[in-house]
């Protein structure tokens, strides 16, 4: 909860008496091409080509796609077709040319996926109801538990690496209804998710309530770093009294995605303008304006790349033991 919420009212003693006036700045601008693409190893490359527009353009809600652009994709300095599947380590260059908006170019290297190292899972049950406890209910079990996971990231030496952590879960009953639900991911448990937050933002309370899960290897370059991943208030529930081990088959997928620097920078930029205080202050002229991060030659758009690895945590044994022990 940002304390800006409280400070703004103080400033509002003056600001409330202030006012805003619509106007049209007489400033010479020329639209340019914008390229957006997220290149994933093993998947076809898609590029969205649009153009920039004056913010207060009356027609700004129209489609900004550029129809007359010719897009050329080069992989390792060789022109490739739209069916090309990029590989890890490929240097991809995208060039778009439009008679109307000129030329735009961006380059990115598809990062090498970083294998997930040792994973230590510590589940702990916080609450449990079983069919024996509630014979009148159509229920095999209702288990609430926490998951504390320590996941090693073995950062390869010699390169600057940027990561994104992701997760999902699986588990369903015979009728297709989900049996597993992951409650809350505790972002505060892993300090490296906050490495982009400075003193100013911390003091303003903007390090809380954030769901930022990008991080870099700046603090552990070439070494192993252990991510502390805590999931709380998870639940396992089966709407049947019939015990069947197949119903216990569920788990959590952890994804460690190595992302390009452009992707990481874009995420940090978005965090700053969406959640950081300087974005708010620059809106009222009390901090320097922030423009969108871009690695495209025109300054518009982001061409990013990623490679991902998955690690699956199987919860079947944990649930089996839990059910049998009580």
């Amino acid at each position, binding site marked *: 909860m940002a304390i800006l919420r409280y400070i703004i009212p103080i400033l509002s003693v003056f600001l409330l008496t202030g006012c805003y006036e619509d106007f049209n700045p007489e400033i010479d601008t020329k639209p340019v091409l914008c390229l957006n693409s997220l290149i994933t190893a093993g998947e076809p490359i898609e590029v969205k080509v649009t153009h920039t527009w004056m913010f207060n353009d009356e027609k700004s809600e129209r489609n900004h796609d550029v129809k007359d652009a010719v897009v050329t994709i080069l992989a390792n300095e060789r022109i490739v077709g739209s069916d090309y599947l990029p590989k890890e380590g490929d240097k991809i260059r995208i060039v778009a040319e439009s008679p109307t908006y000129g030329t735009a170019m961006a380059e990115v290297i598809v990062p090498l996926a970083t294998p997930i190292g040792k994973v230590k899972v510590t589940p702990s049950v916080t609450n449990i109801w079983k069919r024996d406890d509630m014979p009148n209910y159509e229920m095999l079990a209702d288990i609430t538990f926490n998951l504390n996971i320590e996941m090693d990231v073995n950062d390869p030496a010699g390169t600057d690496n940027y990561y994104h952590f992701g997760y999902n879960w699986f588990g369903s009953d015979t009728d297709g209804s989900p049996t597993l639900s992951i409650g809350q991911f505790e972002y505060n448990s892993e300090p490296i998710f906050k490495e982009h937050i400075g003193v100013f933002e911390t003091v303003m309370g903007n*390090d809380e309530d954030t769901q930022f899960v990008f991080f870099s290897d700046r603090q552990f370059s070439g070494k192993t770093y252990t991510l502390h991943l805590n999931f709380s208030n998870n639940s396992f529930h089966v709407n049947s009294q019939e015990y069947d081990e197949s119903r216990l088959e569920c788990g959590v997928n952890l994804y460690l995605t190595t992302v390009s620097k452009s992707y990481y920078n874009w995420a940090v930029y978005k965090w700053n303008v969406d959640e950081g205080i300087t974005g708010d202050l620059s809106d009222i*002229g009390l901090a320097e304006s922030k423009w969108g991060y871009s690695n495209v030659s025109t*300054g518009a758009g982001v061409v990013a790349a990623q490679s991902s690895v998955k690690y699956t945590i199987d919860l079947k044994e944990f649930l089996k033991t839990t059910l049998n022990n009580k």
Partner: protein
Amino acid sequence: MKLFVLSLMLCFSAVCMAQNVTIRAVNQPASVVFRSIVEQTGKNFVYSSELLKDMRVSINVKNKPLKQALSIIFKDSDIEYEIKGRNIILKRKPKPEKRVNKSVVSTERPIIPKQNAVVPKMLEEVVVVSRLEAPAVETAEIGAKKLTAQEIINTPVLFGESDVIKALQMQPGVSEGQEGMAGMHVHGGNADENLYMLDNVPLYQVNHFAGLFSAFNAEAIRYIDFFKSSIPAKYDGRLSSYLDVRTKSGSPEGHHGSFRLGLTSGAFNIDGPIGRKTTYSVALRRSWFDVLSIPMLALVNSSSDDEKIRFRYAFMDLNAKVTHRFSNKATGFISVYFGNDVLKTGSCDKHVPESGWYDDDKCDLHWGNLVAQTGLNYRINPLISAEFTAAYTRYFSGMKHDWLSKEISSSGTTESHSISKTNNNINDWIFRADFDWRPNDANRVRFGGNYILHSFLPARTDRNYTVGTTQTLTRDSTWAYTANEANIYIEDDWRISEKFRMNAGLHLSLFNIDGKTNYGVDPRLSFSYRPSENWAVKAAYARTNQYVHQLSQTYLSLPTDQWVPITGKFKPQNADKVSLGAYWQSDNKMFAASVEGYYKVMRNLVDYRDEYYLQPPTEMWNAQLCSGKGTAKGIDFKIEKLYGKLTGHISYSLAWSDRTFPDKNGGLTFPARFDNRHTINILLNWNISDKVSLNAAWTGHSGNRFTLLPQVWESPDFGTIYSGDESPLKTRLNNYQLPFYHRLDLSCTVRNKRGYWTFGLFNAYCHMNTVAIRRTHNNANRPVFQKVKLLPIIPSISYTWQF
């Protein structure tokens, strides 16, 4: 060569010993006339400050002996003089009976009969005086200004809070920065390039309340010397300007004081004697926003069943000084300055629910300055006096954020607790000695040195997250530095002849930090040619050095702004500045005019690089910074009326200021944010009668520069929460100039027997100036650019009770 220089000096000294003076003055303050005599003869006037209270002089002599001029000056007064060596000693004529009678009926401060016995003993009292007493045509300095406490009080300002910095903002060549804020950008420099010294000791935090008020209490100030072009060799450590603030000592005559109550703060000051040789002076100022906010918050909180809001803001500053006269030659003092801002905010749920969420959020911030010092002013012999200072100064900024969150359910309570604390401190131990030597009538040599032991803690952030039974502790930014700084300087103010005058000096500095020693060799030179009594032309050169700088991500003055030393790859900032000036004063010294031009080159400036926030703060703060250079040039015109019922000045500045950083704006030169091409300031003080005075200040300047991002592009959608919307397209920095800024501030002082009322109007004709441009959507949900306008007309009132 040495012999030649010595001979030359002796020749000029002989010329100066002729003791003839030329003075023309009509109803001028005696101190102004004396200063002219000092400049012409090299002799000092020694007298009790009470002796010449309100004394005015009219005289017209041309090349007459000094004694004859003095006889004319004191002909109709009760003051007699005695020329003793290089001193002209003034004292009252021995007619005590008559004065006692007069004092009984007078409404002015009574003259105590014993004073005649006391005055001679006080004559040789060592008192630090401003080096800018003389009119500009008589000195060698360019761009220097002395401000008295009264001049500060006479400048109308926001909320009626007399403010040193806002008074200086009316001077040509000084930009105010953000509207309403106590920022100062001198001759195209940055806000952190001004050195604020309180009785010889530097202050780091000079603002209260995000910069709305300065940390200097006008009630405690005796005078201020401000230098912006030719910098005396004594000063160094900042690139742009030097503000030497001297605080009041207590009066030996009796206890006096005042109590002021204004809209935003109250102030109390008192001074007087403690025995025969000791005086005290105490000035306390405190805001009372918190007193106002208590009932308002109580109302707000009583209307809410769920949430209780916490809020408290207050600032205070205290100046306390005890001065003791050990002998006629030695005066010592101990003083303390403490300025502090406290901000407490937060909210909590009023009740802990049986199930659901409970939040308790607290944030405490405090920041300020502490200065404790002791000093000794000692007259070693009639020719040399010294000022010794030992001081401890502490700049502190601390912030703590405490957030407790509970999720309560039938199955139990899950508690999250996060505490983050940040500290930014500077501790300085300062030892300095300053000497003032007058080897002959033509020369005045000032020299001295200081040693400062710095201890920097730029930022230390501790985070403590507890979720259930899991606790995570982190500490970022643990850098701390100790630095040793030493300075020596010497300057000679040499009156070469009646027409030529020169001030030449050298300041040497050494700054040792992190195993690296930086040196500064800063020559200073100013030269004055006075073809006639009313005219002077001057030229000056100054090099300045800066070893610490302030990092700020906003245009406000916030406790999160960090003072950091030069470390790593960064070199000390330095600037070279040349100035030229022409000065005129009328025959009766009532009017003065000046034109000053300057060209300044600043090197190794430090600023945040473009997209600095992409560098995580876990790296050295230096990773977010870059180094570059800047230039500034301009001309300042000023016309002043110095005496009479109506006083004031009109000034016009034509200025350019730009910056070039390899890591900003693609390496291209861009205009500085406060590159205000044209600035006009008009300040008028009209003493309508003994009881009523009116003050008006009008300022108008070309709009500040602003980075306007007119185009946008479609943001990528990468499937995370950090997607979507549109993003602004990068443009050149400070590519847009805001509309012309203008504002009139008025104040009126009405005196009565016990004190005076002050009524003020900030922005009297309510022209709301544009401070920024924002992109937003209007009520019809159309994307629009909007001018952001902040401050309308704001009235103020205060009453000062004097006793």
